[in-house]
């Protein structure tokens, strides 16, 4: 038995992570759930249009994409998927790398992940927002008039 006096410890009787660090990881945790719900709608919508309706994957070609990207609605839709999904996926991969890799390997993998994510976010955004239908076949149809006038 101890002969020291009893000390009363006020609850909570455990230590929390520093407030700043907790805020960052908590935001990442919350992001996974918020983006997850949005992505269920955005990606199922994407799959419905591109993989299910009409002749599904058989219908996809340059003209199909040009038709979609003529509507700002789909540019915004695809941009949301690009940003939400890539950051969601990169954060998931960060979790997995932190679980299984140590030391220099972890640093290299996390660095590669960050570079790949930033490069693809920039590339994807440029493609969506600077898309030019006139690089396709403009010999007939809507594009002949549209692109010939330029």
């Amino acid at each position: 038995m101890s002969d020291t006096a009893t000390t009363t410890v006020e609850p909570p009787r455990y230590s929390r992570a520093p407030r700043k660090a907790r805020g960052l990881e908590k935001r990442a945790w919350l992001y996974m759930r918020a983006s997850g719900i949005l992505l269920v709608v955005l990606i199922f919508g994407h799959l419905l249009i591109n993989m299910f309706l009409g002749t599904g994957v058989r219908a996809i070609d340059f003209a199909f994409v040009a038709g979609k990207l003529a509507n700002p609605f789909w540019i915004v839709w695809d941009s949301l998927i690009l940003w939400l999904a890539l950051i969601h996926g990169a954060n998931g991969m960060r979790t997995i790398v932190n679980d299984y890799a140590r030391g220099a390997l972890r640093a290299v993998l996390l660095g590669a992940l960050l570079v790949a994510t930033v490069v693809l976010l920039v590339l994807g955004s440029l493609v969506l927002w600077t898309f030019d239908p006139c690089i396709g076949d403009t010999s007939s149809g809507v594009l002949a008039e549209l692109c010939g006038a330029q």
Partner: protein
Amino acid sequence: MHEESGPASGAATATIDPPKPRRIAGTLYRGREGMWSWVLHRITGVAIFFFLLVHILDTALVRLDADAYDAVIGTYKTPIMGLGEAGLVAAIGLHALNGLRIIAIDFIPGATRVQRPLFWIAIVLWVALLAGFLPRHLMHVFGGA
């Protein structure tokens, strides 16, 4: 304090068998639905992530060269890629439905206690999703004309 280890003796003591270890206990974390949903979520997540990387790159061709884009997207219509797309949609469907289960467990009070039935509900919805998608998709890929 008395010793905690060892069985207590005495006439009034009931004998309680320790829980029988499951066949694969010791090599797996817990097992059962909770662990396997976690494993499946990781595997499908990694698979979807790498597809996303490729998909952003192949779609980027749409900005550079219409014929090059058509050629690459043409490979998406071949039987092998068609089966890959079936697997991709299956992975996305499972990740999405189990993701909604995780969100329910995290945010709805009491949902943790029914995490196991929630997993099987997700599986049933996933099977229904694929039952709607797969026949149509496989007809698009393997069907004539």
